[in-house]
């Protein structure tokens, strides 16, 4: 047994020994230990240095409210900084390092900050490092970052797995102390679906500290495990309470082993949608501010009790217990029973009936006493009359009272109300379907909490219409009333008295904030960083507020606490991502031809959710080699391209044409069956939204295409108008994007190629902008004569599971003409040559007129965007219009995004380049641009400047249709 390990008691398994390392030194512990309890058992007191002053710090708590005992846990890619050693379940081979010390924990050079402590006050950084501004980045920030801050995050990828699990239940119980267990059991017994979450690895909360309750604890757990619809989740911390009774939590599945099981996740992100919530989250002990209240050896009284009773550890050799309430009496008693010498109980109050029992156990109980200082192994006691006494002690336990853990209740929207008996805030009236129970709402005593939990669990079930029947099970006996607490926030003296140990905030910082005008609790919080550390002010939050209240001359009730926000304890980003990283980051959509593209070496590119072929490189080819080969192939003979990602919407019904007339700027009611037409949609504000084609398949049946990116928004837009603005129209809409694969066959030889494949359709009689039906070996085909490339071209729609058969048949048919499959890059090249629009032009700023298609706008009849597109500013002819550009020096390249100016150095932009490519037809770079007075500028010279590349070149303005402006080829 190690020096401080008791020979018996607690929830640890002494028969098994675990080896671990702290700062490279080897230690031993037992299953059931935390890293903190195992270190305390080994006599380790100094475990870290503080954030700002680098003061030595020890272990202060026994749970996630720990402000000081932070370590870097694990090594290399699994390194986890700022981990609270009080919240780390010990495992074999654990490795931990102290943080924030340089060069070593015992000898820390930065501790000089502590000597200059009266200089580094609240707001110090804001005030001091302001001038000169250029020094901030170069000098101050690196210096501060070296001196301050906590642990170091790893830069290596996380090797572990995470997942998200979404649960639903009737009653969610948070916390498994007496109240939580009773609530879960009663709700489960009346038939509710219950989930009980416990952040700890042991179920029982406060029951774990009282050996007399052990049999009840075990019996409750066994019963709960026997109820079918009750699920118990240990190691699951609920971190946030969100809208409509959604709670979030993290289950630490594999944090208590060196490496998670290969088939198991490290952490599981859980959401809970609960009918009713019972918050049995217990209470946290608060500190008292006095000089030296941060030194190693200071420990919360409840934590000391936990170390003795749960972990079988004596956290010191000689102890003083400083309290203003009854709870610390149990600590003093437990310490005495654990064999500590000369335990002194310093009670701030005048008297207490519990004193006699403690004195019988050898505890020196003194009343009316304050602790005014804690130095090296010496506690200074002070009586109200000013008399003093020094007591030798290496352990100083403090209890300033208990704060109900109201975080989740507060996050749920419930206001907090002041409880004068506790001198703390308790949850007020619920806003969502929740209730607090037990210590979480200020109920003191195990028996009392269990009864309160039973009532809360039953009330929750009743609220859901469950219940009835007599639910009765034995509960621990009530403890009866305790003597009232006497509020004590601070023992005034010179020197540093801390209210926030993790951020090194002292009582004087709070007072300074008030003096400098940051008197609102939220302002004081931000000015001092009080409450902003990872413990979220659980220990000293209320104490800081009390100091502020005193400075303001107001009640603590009036000053209040800062808003409680998630997370109740730190959460790893990896857990929240829940496995949706890398290739699982977003859904991936694949066309029916995806497999063919991969087999033929396509370079795939993500486009929205889709993966699309960019180009199909042959051996030794550069990207440009491939693209230029593909483009030449199309322009000179025939090419084939997978266009399946275009949005396709099926419209049926007697009013389908009317709806289209009202959504597009041009008319579709005039379109003959068997014809298709290019169309442009505006948004209601008059700006171009999307373009595509609409084909009339039958009198009351249309098929429209949208751009790939806007497929979903266009359908939503159409549904909005059909359902909400013109619900009287008889139109049925649905997406057929996935039903039909679409294959573009483009180039002068496309007709002869396709004619070998398509049966039942005379392609020579099939004019430009026609749609017709044909088939291939029994596979139905829809053929559209439309062209994005500017060549004679067709698009063939085929039911998607047959896509590859048809694709390969077309390739075979075109083989004699040297048919080439082409990708997005080539498509883009050709459409820029032709001056067709894409997303770079349809950028949410351009009107139909800006894009050169204003003439399409119908003169009569309403359509979306008609009225507002006529606003003077949108109709201004001086607006940037779509033009073509090319460099005067044909050897120069163009840059997308370059600005167009009248001469280099001019600060006034006349427009910008939207798309650029190397033209196959013209043998030079060409581009599309938006240019003020675009049409009038045709033939003139402007300068394209790209400051990013430090380039400025002369370009000549032209029509956007660089190739075949008369549209001869498509009509061939």
């Amino acid at each position: 047994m190690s020096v401080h390990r008791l020979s018996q008691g607690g929830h640890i398994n002494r028969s098994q020994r675990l080896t671990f390392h702290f700062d490279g030194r080897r230690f031993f512990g037992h299953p059931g230990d935390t890293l903190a309890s195992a270190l305390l058992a080994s006599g380790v007191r100094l475990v870290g240095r503080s954030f700002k002053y680098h003061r030595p710090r020890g272990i202060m708590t026994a749970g996630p409210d720990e402000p000081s005992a932070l370590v870097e846990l694990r090594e290399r890619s699994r390194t986890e900084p700022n981990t609270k050693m009080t919240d780390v379940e010990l495992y074999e081979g654990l490795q931990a390092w102290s943080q924030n010390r340089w060069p070593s924990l015992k000898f820390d050079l930065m501790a000089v900050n502590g000597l200059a402590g009266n200089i580094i006050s609240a707001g110090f950084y804001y005030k001091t490092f302001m001038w000169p501004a250029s020094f901030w980045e170069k000098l101050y920030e690196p210096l501060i970052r070296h001196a301050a801050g906590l642990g170091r995050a790893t830069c290596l990828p996380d090797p572990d797995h995470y997942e998200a699990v979404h649960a639903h239940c009737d009653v969610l119980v948070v916390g498994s102390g007496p109240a939580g267990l009773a609530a879960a059991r009663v709700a489960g017994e009346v038939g509710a679906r219950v989930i009980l979450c416990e952040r700890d690895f042991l179920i029982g909360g406060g029951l774990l500290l009282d050996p007399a309750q052990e049999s009840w604890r075990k019996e409750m757990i066994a019963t709960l495990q026997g109820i079918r619809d009750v699920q118990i989740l240990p190691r699951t911390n609920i971190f946030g309470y969100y809208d409509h009774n959604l709670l979030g939590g993290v289950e630490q599945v594999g944090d208590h082993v060196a490496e998670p099981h290969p088939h198991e996740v490290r952490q599981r992100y859980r959401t809970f949608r609960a009918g009713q919530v019972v918050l049995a989250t217990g209470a946290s002990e608060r500190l008292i501010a006095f000089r030296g209240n941060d030194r190693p050896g200071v420990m919360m009284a409840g934590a000391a009790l936990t170390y003795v009773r749960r972990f079988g550890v004596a956290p010191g050799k000689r102890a003083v217990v400083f309290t203003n309430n009854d709870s610390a009496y149990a600590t003093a008693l437990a310490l005495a029973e654990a064999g500590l010498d000369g335990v002194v109980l310093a009670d701030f109050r005048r008297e207490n009936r519990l004193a006699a029992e403690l004195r019988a156990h050898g505890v020196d109980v003194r009343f009316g006493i304050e602790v005014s200082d804690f130095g090296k192994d010496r506690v200074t006691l002070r009586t109200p009359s000013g008399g003093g006494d020094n007591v030798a002690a290496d352990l100083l336990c403090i209890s300033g009272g208990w704060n109900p853990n109201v975080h989740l209740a507060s996050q749920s929207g419930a206001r907090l109300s002041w409880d004068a008996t506790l001198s703390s805030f308790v949850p007020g009236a619920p806003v969502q379907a929740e209730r607090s129970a037990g210590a979480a709402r200020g109920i003191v005593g195990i028996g009392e909490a269990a009864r309160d939990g039973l009532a809360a669990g039953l009330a929750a079930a009743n609220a859901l219409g469950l219940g009835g029947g007599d639910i009765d099970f034995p509960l621990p006996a009530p403890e009866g009333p305790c003597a009232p607490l006497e509020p004590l926030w601070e023992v005034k003296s010179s020197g540093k008295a801390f209210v926030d140990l993790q951020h090194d905030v002292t009582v004087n910082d709070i007072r300074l904030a008030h003096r400098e005008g940051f008197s609102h609790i939220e302002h004081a919080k931000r000015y001092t960083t009080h409450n902003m550390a990872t413990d979220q002010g659980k220990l000293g939050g209320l104490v800081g507020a009390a100091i502020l209240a005193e400075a303001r001359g107001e009640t603590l009730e009036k000053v209040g606490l800062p808003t409680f926000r998630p997370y109740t304890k730190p959460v790893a980003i990896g857990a929240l991502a829940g496995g949706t990283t890398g290739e699982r980051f977003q859904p991936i959509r694949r066309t029916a031809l995806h497999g063919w593209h991969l087999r033929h070496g396509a370079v795939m590119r993500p486009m929205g959710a889709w993966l699309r072929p960019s180009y199909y490189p042959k051996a030794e080819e550069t990207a440009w080699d491939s693209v230029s080969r593909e483009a030449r192939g199309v322009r000179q003979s025939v090419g084939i391209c997978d266009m399946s990602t275009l949005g396709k919407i099926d419209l049926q019904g007697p009013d389908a044409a009317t709806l289209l007339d009202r959504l597009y700027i041009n008319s579709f009611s005039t379109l003959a069956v068997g014809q298709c037409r290019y169309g442009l949609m505006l948004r209601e504000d008059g700006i171009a939204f999307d373009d595509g084609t609409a084909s009339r398949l039958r009198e009351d049946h249309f098929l429209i295409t949208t751009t790939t990116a806007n497929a979903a928004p266009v359908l939503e837009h159409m549904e909005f108008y059909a359902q909400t603005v013109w619900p009287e129209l008889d139109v049925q809409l649905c997406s057929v994007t996935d039903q039909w694969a679409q294959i573009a066959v483009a180039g002068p030889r496309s007709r002869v190629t396709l004619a070998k494949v398509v049966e039942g359709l005379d392609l020579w009689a099939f004019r430009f902008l026609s749609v017709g039906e044909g088939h291939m070996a029994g596979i139905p085909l829809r053929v559209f004569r439309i062209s994005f490339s500017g060549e004679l071209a067709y698009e063939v729609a085929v039911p998607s599971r047959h896509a590859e058969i048809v694709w390969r048949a077309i390739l075979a048919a075109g083989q004699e003409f040297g048919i080439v499959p082409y990708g997005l890059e080539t498509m883009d090249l050709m459409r820029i040559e032709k001056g067709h629009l894409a997303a770079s032009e349809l950028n949410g700023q351009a009107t139909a007129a800006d894009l050169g298609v204003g003439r399409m706008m119908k003169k009569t009849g309403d359509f979306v965007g008609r009225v507002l597109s006529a606003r003077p500013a949108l109709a201004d002819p001086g607006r940037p219009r779509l033009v073509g550009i090319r460099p005067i020096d044909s050897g120069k390249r163009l840059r997308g995004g370059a600005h167009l100016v009248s001469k280099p150095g001019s600060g006034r932009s006349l427009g910008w380049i939207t798309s650029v490519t190397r033209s196959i037809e013209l043998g030079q770079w060409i581009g599309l641009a938006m240019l003020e007075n675009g049409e009038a500028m045709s033939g003139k010279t402007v300068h394209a400047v790209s400051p990013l590349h430090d380039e400025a070149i002369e370009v000549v303005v032209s029509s956007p249709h660089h190739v075949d402006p008369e549209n001869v080829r498509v009509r061939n």
Partner: protein
Amino acid sequence: MLLIPCPYCGARPQDEFHYRGDATVKRPAPDAGLQALYDFVYTRTNPRGWHLEWWHHYAGCRQWVKVERNTLTHEIRTAVGPAEDTPQLSA
């Protein structure tokens, strides 16, 4: 995450919906003029409390649902189909 009571599908999490905004404004008649259209597109109240909003159940029944939501508390009182009227808004 909100739980939106789709009148067709039942209560569904917010991520099945797309938000569009104010459902109290009505698209003016085609001849109502520029100002009316301008107000329809741009002029909005920003109520603190109960508000009527369009939510599109894009991942479900694809209906534009009219949802009465409290902008302060996120409480949702009613949700009706696109062409239906909700009970009168009250503060």
